[in-house]
């Protein structure tokens, strides 16, 4: 199961290999020395862990605002669901089972008071996704106004979340959907 803190790892002989998870990315690993790390402002990171397969993964997303004509309080659920599915599929590809997945959610701060509450909207989307998918949310640290740094060891499920200076968080402008994958259709 998930553990809430990272202790000096007696079972890891080598120094941890830190890999930064950037906005829009999803990374999965079963390597004991790997530590996934990210800094979040309004963004949200979902950490998934399968305690039987000893594999874990993290994504980092800030959902684009919805298309014109949609309520501005909403987020782009098509893109959000896609980013979540990317992470889940990578986990399944490494031997995880969906029914065994345990989830942590972090981030979703409303760092910039002049913007819409995009952090809250992203956090609500992530919670709703986990609920719909039947994935167990075992810990969350969401909302507020402070940026967070998350360090996650995917092979053990150990995670540490701490607040950091806002200047360390990436810019809070929602990114547009990737131009490469916007539902292009190819008929054979």
């Amino acid at each position, binding site marked *: 199961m998930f553990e809430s803190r990272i202790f000096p790892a007696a079972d890891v002989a080598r120094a941890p290999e830190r890999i930064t998870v950037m906005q829009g990315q999803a990374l999965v690993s079963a390597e004991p020395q790997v530590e996934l790390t990210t800094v979040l402002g309004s963004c949200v990171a979902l950490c998934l862990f399968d305690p039987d397969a000893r594999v874990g993964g993290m994504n980092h997303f800030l959902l684009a605002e919805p298309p014109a004509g949609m309520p501005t309080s909403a987020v782009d*659920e*098509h*893109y959000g*669901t*896609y980013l*979540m*599915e*990317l992470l*889940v*599929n990578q986990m*399944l*590809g490494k031997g995880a089972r*969906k029914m065994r997945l345990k989830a942590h959610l972090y981030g979703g701060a409303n760092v910039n008071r002049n913007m819409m509450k995009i952090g809250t909207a992203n956090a609500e989307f992530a919670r709703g*996704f986990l609920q*719909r*998918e*039947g994935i167990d949310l075992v810990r969350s640290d969401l909302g507020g106004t402070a940026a967070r740094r998350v360090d996650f060891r995917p092979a053990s499920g150990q995670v540490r979340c701490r607040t950091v200076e806002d200047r360390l968080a990436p810019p809070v402008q929602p990114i547009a*959907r990737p131009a*490469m*994958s*916007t*539902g*292009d*259709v*190819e*008929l*054979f």
Partner: protein
Amino acid sequence: MSNNTRILTVDDSPSMRALLNHALTSQGFDVSQAEDGIAALDWLALNEVDVVITDINMPRLDGFGLIERLREGSRHRDRPILVLTTESSEEKKARAREAGATGWIVKPFDPQKLVAAVRRVAH
């Protein structure tokens, strides 16, 4: 015409099925849902459909297996089957084509493009 088109969506993600259901029913399509390839085969054994839209990565029976099973018999040999997937590799696309898929759509899907594709392949 589209009001009579019956679609089966096959995806293991309830979130994705909900998005598909909303996008298609709002355009007047008659939509049914299955959570994987086995559930789709069970449903298709008892029901008629005009178009199948299927994910690739699913438990029990994936999208490739579903397409192959449907193409084995005469009943669904010419049924339009659209693949809707996060997979972007040419290898996977080629495998879907060889299995007998009618088209390939990459997620995140654009509802308008999806509806246009369904209308184009529906007979």
